[in-house]
């Protein structure tokens, strides 16, 4: 294996991850920035738990989604993990058949806001998330801005503000009557 000869650290990382995942079905293609673990949705949470507990990935640095519209299934969830002990990073990729995924906040509480942002921007619902509200867009907004079909100038971006303004003025008119 020429890869292992050229990069012993990468070889050690790959074998550590393979040992942690054990019999869990997964693919592990190499990308320019390290190994990518591809798992099915059903195995996602188990794979993340195994990586955290047996491969030393104690930090989840990023959770995001990629919209591959118009191909179906369109969403692919990405977890970027970091091991400080082994100075190692790995990415876990999971293609979502629908629009929901298991949360990983029980493994890494810091993933809370990242999953909220992912829900806000892509509409991916994280089952079991303690507080799945929008993070950046106002509450009550109907759309998910980073989906491919969303126009970049937005869909009625001022609707919620106008609603709030009208309700406020109506209540004042009620008071002064």
């Amino acid at each position: 294996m020429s890869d292992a000869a050229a990069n012993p650290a990468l070889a050690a990382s790959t074998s550590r991850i393979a040992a942690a995942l054990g019999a869990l079905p997964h693919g592990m293609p190499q990308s320019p920035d390290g190994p990518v673990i591809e798992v099915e949705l059903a195995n996602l949470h188990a794979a993340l738990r195994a990586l955290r507990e047996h491969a030393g990935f104690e930090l989840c640095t990023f959770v995001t989604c990629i919209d591959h519209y118009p191909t179906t299934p369109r969403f692919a969830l990405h977890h970027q993990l970091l091991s400080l002990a082994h100075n190692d990073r790995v990415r876990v990729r999971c293609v979502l058949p629908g629009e929901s995924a298991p949360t990983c906040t029980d493994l890494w509480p810091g993933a809370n806001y990242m999953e909220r942002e992912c829900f806000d921007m892509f509409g991916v619902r994280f089952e079991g998330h303690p507080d799945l509200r929008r993070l950046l867009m106002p509450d009550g907004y109907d759309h998910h801005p980073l989906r491919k079909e969303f126009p970049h100038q937005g869909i009625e971006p001022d609707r919620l503000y106008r609603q709030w303004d009208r309700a406020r003025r109506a209540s004042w008119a009620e008071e002064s009557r």
Partner: protein
Amino acid sequence: MGSLKPVGPESNEAHGSGFLATRADFLINWGRKHSLWPMPLGLSCCGIELMGLLGPKFDLARFGAEAARFTPRQCDLLIVAGTLTWKMAQAARTIYDQMPDPKWVIAMGVCSSSGGMYDSYSVVQGIDSIMPVDLYVPGCPPRPDAVIDAVLKLQKKIEREAPLRRLVGTDSPADARAEAGTGKLVFQPNRGLPKGAADKHAHDPKSRLPFADPLPRKTGVKP
């Protein structure tokens, strides 16, 4: 008109007794324009330039506007410095409403003036779609000098206001002249305000007339 000199070069008597004759409008405006109290609404990088403006190097105190307060209830000049998002718009409008009259607004930087480079779903395309604006300062961000220029222009603008007209509620001095001698009551406070508005404190945002929704923007249409 428009001066604080004593009446007449020969009226030493009046001068010596401490009298001044001037227009009330002028005197009120003179006081207002030299004691602006800015409310710094720093929303992004323009806020850093605003801090430089209020600091010792550019020193807005030279123009009487250094007393920045971080509560809108003590301010009469709202400086919106930076990118206003639709989520923040409610807060910005509430801050504007909480400022006592008379009040002025400076849109600092292209983001607050027109949305700037953020032609995007989350950004208000110009704060004039949610509140009236007196002055727009271009720049990304504008240098503090540009904002000083805006404050000086705002002082010129305040000079042209007629605060007494607002007090007596006449639409124009011509109306007041027409009514004089006809037996009609010239002094009608709050004429033209909606019913019940006069019951509230003048500083209550609820007593203000609504600011109309803007016309839909025409983009890419040439006249």
